[in-house]
């Protein structure tokens, strides 16, 4: 379904990003994976050996502009283009209003939205008609979530940014959409308190926590030509949390 497509995925070493990388490699995409974890190289090797696709591992921080430029430069050298950009890297910040440290808030915004703006501006230079940008936000960015005001705000910004660039890029045949996962079983959500975890699961209409693969399947739809006429949309993947 993505045979020969060139895909950049941030936050690819674990959770949703890793599931997307595995899903895309299985259908033939060539990947440029980004993450802070040195273990990313092992994932790249495993995906290459399992599926025969080209996989490059870029270890660095999305807050670092030279790192982002290096990733896009590598895509230019390897394929001369980018077909799909998945902006997935993100951090969560918990804290009730009045107890939100500003340094953590700045760091949250740096990773969750400013890095997306930065990377997208570099990547779009290598994108043409048929290309797809997938920005991973959160249900918190759509509806807000108590105890994560700064995180919710940063994800809301991801949504607004995506809707704006979808309008700007539609004329060039480049699509931009948002994935808004609900409560997904990742290291990020496992770090939440037991009480939070229980409350979140209880709020899911389908009665189970989502798996990273649930999100990856929708990402595949948005990356492929199956969604060729879909842009400027916020797609919830939440098992009925918003229903």
């Amino acid at each position: 379904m993505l045979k020969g497509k060139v895909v950049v995925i941030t936050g690819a070493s674990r959770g949703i990003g890793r599931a997307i990388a595995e899903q895309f490699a299985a259908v033939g995409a060539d990947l440029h994976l980004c993450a802070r974890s040195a273990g990313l190289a092992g994932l790249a090797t495993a995906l290459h050996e399992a599926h025969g696709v080209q996989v490059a591992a870029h270890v660095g921080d999305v807050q670092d502009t030279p790192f982002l430029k290096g990733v896009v430069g590598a895509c230019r050298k390897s394929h001369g283009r980018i077909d799909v950009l998945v902006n997935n890297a993100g951090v969560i910040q918990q804290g009730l209003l009045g107890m939100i440290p500003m340094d953590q808030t700045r760091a949250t915004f740096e990773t969750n939205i400013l890095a997306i703006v930065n990377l997208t501006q570099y990547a779009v230079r290598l994108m043409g008609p048929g290309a797809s940008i997938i920005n991973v936000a959160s249900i918190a960015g759509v509806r807000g979530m108590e105890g994560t005001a700064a995180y919710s705000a940063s994800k809301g910004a991801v949504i607004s940014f995506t809707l704006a660039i979808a309008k700007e890029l539609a004329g060039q045949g480049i699509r931009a959409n948002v994935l808004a996962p609900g409560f997904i079983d990742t290291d990020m959500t496992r770090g939440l308190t037991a009480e939070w975890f229980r409350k979140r699961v209880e709020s899911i209409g389908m009665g189970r926590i989502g798996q990273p693969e649930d999100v990856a399947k929708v990402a595949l739809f948005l990356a492929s030509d199956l969604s060729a006429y879909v842009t400027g949309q916020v797609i919830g993947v939440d098992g009925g949390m918003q229903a």
Partner: protein
Amino acid sequence: MTDNEAKLIDCFVQGLGIEAGLVTDDLTYNSVRQWDSVGHMALMTEIETVFDIMLDTEDIIGLSSVAKAKALLVKYGVAI
């Protein structure tokens, strides 16, 4: 004219779809219909590809004339 100057002129021709005769130091952003925001990004892609460089976003914003394009290339180590 150096080889790199000729390459730069060709970047404007290919990126903006204009005649080479129009590409003088005085040509500026929005002075011709083709050099609008969309044409600008196509021009940047052409320059980056031909000279194998990655321009900073701030430099792209500031590249508003042929003369500035030449100066920018020098900054990126391209002899003009």
